[in-house]
């Protein structure tokens, strides 16, 4: 009972704020609405029983990425700046395309999911298990992906510094 109510509250928050985030007239407000969406998503992970994913989502998305966004907005906009509104035609086309896409995917979802799944109670993954899976080389273990991500992050750091540096 409590779970359902929490889920519906989170679902309403996510739906409303994700639509507001892409239709707001000011960038800083969009970023704030995006922050609400990301935190509500973290709440969904908590509801699913993935506390580790909840922590990662809160720290990396709601913490790190949002700070980057706020800094970028403050660096590129004057306070109180409004975005010049887009043309009605462009907006209408985008609305039509996304509504049609959403209806199409919704029909596919509701006609294809057979209600055979049951939510079995599952003890949550402990962090030791997650760490061993991340560092193992066996089947269903992810050391290679972990190392590739680390190289990608290194390349991202070097690339970001290279691109954003001041040219003398």
């Amino acid at each position, binding site marked *: 009972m409590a779970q359902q109510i929490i889920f519906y509250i989170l679902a309403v928050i996510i739906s409303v704020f994700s639509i507001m985030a892409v239709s707001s007239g000011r960038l800083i407000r969009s*970023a704030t609405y995006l922050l609400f969406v990301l935190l509500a998503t973290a709440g969904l992970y908590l509801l699913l029983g993935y506390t580790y994913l909840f922590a990662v989502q809160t720290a990396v998305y709601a913490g790190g990425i949002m700070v980057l966004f706020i800094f970028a907005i403050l660096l590129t906009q004057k306070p109180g700046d409004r975005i010049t509104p887009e043309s009605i035609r462009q907006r209408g086309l985008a609305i039509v395309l996304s509504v049609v896409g959403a209806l199409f*995917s919704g029909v596919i979802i509701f006609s294809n999911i057979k209600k055979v799944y049951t939510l079995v109670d599952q003890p949550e993954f402990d962090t030791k298990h997650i760490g061993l899976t*991340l560092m193992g080389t066996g089947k*269903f273990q*992810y050391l290679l*992906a972990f190392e590739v991500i680390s190289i990608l*992050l290194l390349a991202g750091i070097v690339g970001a510094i290279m691109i954003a540096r001041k040219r003398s």
Partner: protein
Amino acid sequence: MFDSFTNFFSGIIPLEAYMVVSLIMFFSGVYGFLSRKSLLMILISIELILNSIDINFAVFNRYLYPENMEGFFFALFTIAISACETAVAIAIVINIYRNLGNVEVDSLNELKEDAPEN
């Protein structure tokens, strides 16, 4: 009628409910990506899209294969990749602002700046 209402609040949360939430998030991201002209708004839309995919991975893992961890790790790696992508994209946006003075897509009609005489 009343029964279906009480079923709404008892029993497990259906898989479709999570997917509808992620569907709304995904297509509002698509709308923002197609309609907005500021580069930062486009980036925010991309974040919404990536985040909705993360929800799907976690939900499929929890409901369909609760004893495995594939979806869990996919969501974890996707979060790491999107952090990396955002950092590089914001570096590009700041560079564009430094060269052009704004971050609108319309003013971006050439990629290479004029070569300085040396």
